[in-house]
């Protein structure tokens, strides 16, 4: 097994062995369920519209959960001194980052997919396409991966988990609110800010059941840039 997968497996196991993972999973499922009942099912709507609203409301808890899952990834290693174990092993820094990220992503994916009973209820009682379902979940996973990437970068910059969560959330909110900047700036900046908005510019298509390559590429790019920066931070730490 490669070093990255070994680290990913340990990380995934860590979420199940500690209360943190269970609390985050339970919170996401509870909030998603509440939002689904309170808003998605509200009033008389067509099944497709209910599913679209489900994905819209599920995206918020997914992003928040990603930041909380990511906050421990590297900040905790620094706090506990276990980063020295990884540094002293014949493992590349990028494998450390990738392993940590994949472990958290696997957990987040599991939690996200555990919400599938809600869309299935719509499927049983109404008319929705499986394509819409798959596109929505693909969007949630890509949005979650990008949020996790930003959270991982925050975790690499911080000395403790609280600070890591704050930095991760700040990075995430900056990208989320880019659309606000777009509305108050002149071209070409308005177009740039509109294009990099994490949710507004790229998630609505997924929640409506459409998959556009540009949206997939955007989320993958955000994830890659965040993980690349994290690797650089980790490399730089060897000098300090």
């Amino acid at each position: 097994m490669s070093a990255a997968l070994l680290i990913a497996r340990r990380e995934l196991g860590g979420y199940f062995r500690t209360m943190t993972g269970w609390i985050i999973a339970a919170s996401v499922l509870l909030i998603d369920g509440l939002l689904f009942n309170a808003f998605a099912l509200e009033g008389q709507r067509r099944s497709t519209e209910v599913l679209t609203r489900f994905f819209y409301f599920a995206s918020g808890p997914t992003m928040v959960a990603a930041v909380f899952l990511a906050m421990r990834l590297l900040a905790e290693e620094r706090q506990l001194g276990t980063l020295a174990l990884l540094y002293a092993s014949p493992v590349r820094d990028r494998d450390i980052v990738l392993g940590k990220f994949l472990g958290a992503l696997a957990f987040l994916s599991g939690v996200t997919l555990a919400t599938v009973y809600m869309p299935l209820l719509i499927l049983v009682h109404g008319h929705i396409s499986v394509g819409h379902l798959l596109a929505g979940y693909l969007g949630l996973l890509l949005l979650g991966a990008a949020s996790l990437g930003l959270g991982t970068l925050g975790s690499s910059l911080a000395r403790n988990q609280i600070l890591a969560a704050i930095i991760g959330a700040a990075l995430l909110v900056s990208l989320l609110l880019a659309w606000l900047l777009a509305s108050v700036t002149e071209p070409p900046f308005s177009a740039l800010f509109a294009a990099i908005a994490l949710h507004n510019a790229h998630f609505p298509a997924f929640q409506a059941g459409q998959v556009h390559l540009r949206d997939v590429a955007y989320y993958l790019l955000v994830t890659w840039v965040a993980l690349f920066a994290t690797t650089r931070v980790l490399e730089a730490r060897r000098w300090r």
Partner: protein
Amino acid sequence: MIQVEQLSKYYGARAAIRNLSFRIDSGEVVGFLGLNGAGKTTTLRILGSVLLPTSGTVRLDGQDIFTAPRELKARIGFLPELPPLYEDMDVGEYLAFVAGLRGVDPARIRARVGETEERTGLAALDDERISTLSHGYRQRVGVAQALVHSPEVLLLDEPANGLDPVQNVEMRALIRSLRGDHTVLVSSHILPEIAQTCDRLLVIRDGELVAQGTETELEQRLGVGTGVELEIAGPVDAVATALRGVAGVRAVTVQAANGGRAVLRVDAPDTLRPALAQAAVAAGAQLFRLDVSADRLESLFLRLAGRGGAA
């Protein structure tokens, strides 16, 4: 085996270590001695690839560990000052994870974990959650993780840190048992602790290597090791005068006196012990104890590593 040349590490303008050069041969157990803040941990972290130096090289069998393939790192085992433990894992599970990271053949991992647990006295704790272990056992798990991939070189940073006397003795025995199978560099700020364990000592002060050699060589070089202690009952002043009369004695001080007994410290070569015993008894003393002064190592340490000390 390990060749360190002109190794320096600066944090801004402050030098944590400066131009360190030393060599450790295969199979040696070498003590790395210095006060807190002398630069021991920085040096070991660099040797363990956790930290990069500002300048200088570290070679393992001629290969620079900073530019050589990653696999070279698998030949080194490192126990940092704070054992790097995942507290949510069981002991066996943790060691298997570390073995995997260090490139042990997956088919051999279980066997290696078992062997390492046997060697470090952890066999009964394989299923134990690390967070529930006492400080002494956590330290052992720290040593076990450094050993699990059977590295040629072991770097142990203050392995006896915070251990009680019994655990301390066990840790020394464990380190002694590594002699021959591994090349070991073990740091400490307590000389008696590593003097009993190591073949040779490297002494670091304010980031610079100030002395190296065996304990005896260092004592001879510094003229330390000349203290003899006597515990007696009887006429203390008369005995002290008699001892001062023995050729080769430079000074006699009464260090403690209670319950009718007194401890006299004689500044003299320890080869004079028979003559000192005779003189004390002839002066009317009942001799309860005569041995090399207990503060000999302390004195050597202060001379070597103490701030402003003369090396």
